[in-house]
């Protein structure tokens, strides 16, 4: 008992390590949300008319929509009119070559431990960096373009590859899919675009690093990944934000399109500022992520390690349309202090012999609330589809909550759907056992938590698995007396 309380107290003492911000000259939209702002953003980005129309249509629809309230999260109503929808560091050069980026901006990333110098980069990882509303640069572009792989900022894709963007934008997450997706469609400012041509196995990890720096600014980015027949790509996103007393809104959209025999692996290490120990500040992370296995034998795999954000609302999903297609969702979500997470997935089986696998590991500490919400839907045509779901919750202390909301809808009698759920506590017994072998309580918690999350962490690309392990340990650092 008393030890548990000590655990909780200590737990709250950790400082967020990416909480600093820097000053730079910015190009900003006026505060507020209306049609003119949308036109302002679109013209700032010199967008074609069709895209402006697409935005305006989304905005029109959005105005008729209500903020969703079904998620198990509670926060004061966000005043969307008080936010700024565009803020971009002023850059002297328009070039997106890393060598042309303002050195001051590069320093931000150096400080985050992300070297954009191609020589110093981890071998085999290309990065697009998004600061506030815009992409500031992409590495390894030349190497990739030799293979026909397009990896660039969304804005650049609109200019350079308008047909591709036009074809796929909104094809997986329609502009009016839900409240936040519609808002994103109206005001999104940048993001990453990635196209893997037929038969190409992308030789390096592609990654986007998102950083919110500006205050009082919402971040709305879009990522679009298109994998043509027989192609493969592994993609990773990471993110951090300064420590601020106000909450900040992040409402992103990710769309993945996988054609015949294509495979896309999408990994997220989410470390937005979670707010302080009293629940002040932090990012509202309201994200729509969806992939479609459009072609037969295609595969989309989502892996997420969620440690940050004050409130998370996020359900990376797979539409298994192609026969024999496979959808996977591997998730570790850690909440501490007053964080709230409502996260999970949707697996929609449409094609025959489709398979899905869900492994969700929640870890709750402090006074946080952690919910898994998952839907498995098997449509009439989806004969012989299979789903396996494993939802585990790990509790630290007795002031946090873990909840599981599985929804299962089966319209084909040949489907096989299995759901397993467990709830456990990090036992004092386990910690004491480790202590007795000379292991400090902090390292004991790290060991236990990493062991618990192993199945998910194993899915991450090697370079990032280590980072993720450290992050998990860090999030729960000081968690024991």
């Amino acid at each position, binding site marked *: 008992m*008393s*030890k548990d309380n000590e655990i909780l107290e200590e737990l709250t003492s950790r400082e967020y390590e990416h909480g600093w911000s820097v000053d730079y000259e910015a190009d900003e939209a006026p505060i507020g949300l209306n049609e003119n702002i949308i036109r302002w953003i679109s013209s700032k980005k010199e967008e074609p008319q069709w895209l402006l129309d697409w935005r305006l249509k989304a905005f029109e629809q959005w105005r008729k929509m209500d903020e969703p309230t079904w998620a198990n999260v509670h926060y004061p109503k966000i005043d969307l009119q008080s936010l700024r929808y565009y803020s971009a560091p002023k850059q002297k050069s328009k070039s997106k070559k890393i060598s042309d980026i303002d050195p001051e901006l590069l320093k931000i990333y150096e400080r985050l431990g992300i070297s954009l110098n191609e020589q110093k980069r981890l071998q085999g990882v290309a990065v697009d960096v998004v600061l506030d509303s815009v992409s500031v640069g992409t590495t390894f572009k030349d190497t990739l373009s030799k293979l026909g792989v397009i990896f660039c900022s969304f804005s650049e894709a609109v200019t350079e590859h308008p047909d591709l963007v036009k074809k796929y934008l909104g094809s997986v997450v329609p502009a009016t899919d839900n409240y936040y997706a519609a808002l994103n469609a109206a005001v999104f400012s940048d993001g990453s675009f990635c196209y893997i041509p037929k038969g190409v196995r992308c030789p390096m990890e592609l990654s986007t690093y998102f950083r919110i720096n500006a205050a009082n600014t919402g971040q709305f980015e879009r990522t679009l990944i298109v994998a043509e027949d027989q192609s493969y790509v592994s993609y990773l996103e990471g993110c951090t934000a300064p420590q601020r007393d106000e909450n900040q809104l992040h409402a992103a959209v990710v769309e993945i399109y996988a054609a015949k025999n294509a495979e896309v692996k999408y990994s997220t290490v989410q470390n937005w500022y979670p707010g302080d120990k009293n629940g002040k500040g932090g990012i509202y992370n309201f994200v729509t992520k969806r992939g479609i296995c459009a072609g037969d034998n295609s595969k989309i795999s989502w892996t997420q390690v969620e440690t940050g954000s004050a409130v998370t609302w996020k359900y990376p999903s797979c539409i298994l349309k192609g026969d024999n297609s496979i959808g996977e969702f591997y998730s570790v979500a850690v909440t501490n202090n007053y964080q709230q997470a409502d996260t999970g997935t949707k697996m929609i089986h449409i094609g025959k012999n489709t398979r899905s696998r869900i492994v969700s590991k929640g870890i709750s500490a402090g006074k946080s609330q952690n919910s898994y919400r998952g839907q498995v839907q098997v449509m009439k045509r989806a004969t012989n589809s299979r789903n396996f779901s494993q939802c585990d919750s790990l509790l630290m202390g007795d002031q946090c909550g873990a909840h599981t909301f599985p929804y299962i809808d089966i319209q084909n009698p040949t489907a096989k759907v299995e759901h397993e759920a467990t709830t456990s506590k990090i*036992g*004092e*017994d*386990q910690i*004491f*056992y*480790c*202590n*007795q*072998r*000379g*292991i*400090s*309580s902090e*390292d004991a918690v790290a*060991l*236990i938590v*990493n*062991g*618990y*999350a*192993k*199945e998910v962490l194993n899915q991450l690309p090697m370079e990032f698995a280590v980072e993720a392990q450290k992050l998990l340990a860090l999030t729960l650092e000081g968690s024991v007396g």
Partner: protein
Amino acid sequence: MLSIKNLHAAIEGSPILNGINLEIKAGEVHAIMGPNGSGKSTLASVLAGREEYEVTEGSVTFKNKNILELSPEDRAREGIFLAFQYPVEIPGVSSTNFLRTAVNQVREYRGQSPLDAVKFLSLMKEKMKLVEIDQKLLSRALNEGFSGGEKKKNEIFQMAMLEPTLSILDETDSGLDIDALKVVANGVNQLKTKDNATIVVTHYQRLLDYIVPDFVHVLYKGKIVKSGTKDLALELEAKGYDWIKDELSGATV
């Protein structure tokens, strides 16, 4: 090496240990016996530093240090090892990873540099032979799904890896088949030096045929009520505890 003086300990207000006195010198083996619920595991837990137990009176010094002031991990790093009566399972954490963390934290405390992977693995190999433990067991998650006997063996393996100065074996023999008992006893004996000491908590004289104690103590209602040599264990085996209880009530009435 270890000096326990008038040790009283309670859990949630109810006293369990009621004035234990025990002196252990380097090179000695002490057996502690006693009926169920007499406080044997409690004594082991108090020595290891389990926080639920409140020490209400008395002192414990180990290598001239007041260990009651030390955290459980520091006591372990000082060289106290407890082979648990009920080892816990830690899902997803391999024994190898667990032990590497443990060994290196102990080494750090002692000012030694951490063992690299190669050195660590060769140390594992060496110790595995000593307790005849199967490598496969060690690549699995720590104690997860281990049989009762496998867990006990793994405790002794960990002891071998950590090379403690004082080992407390809490009913390590319970749940072991006869062959495993010999293996474990053999391992313990091989680890014995003139510089370390062992406390063996057991209900059965049989173990003491293999690990021969210098002293045997009987714990009853939180007190050591009788001490003797190996013969005392034989006597207990033959007669049970009633005669001691009778002797005691005779003495106090």
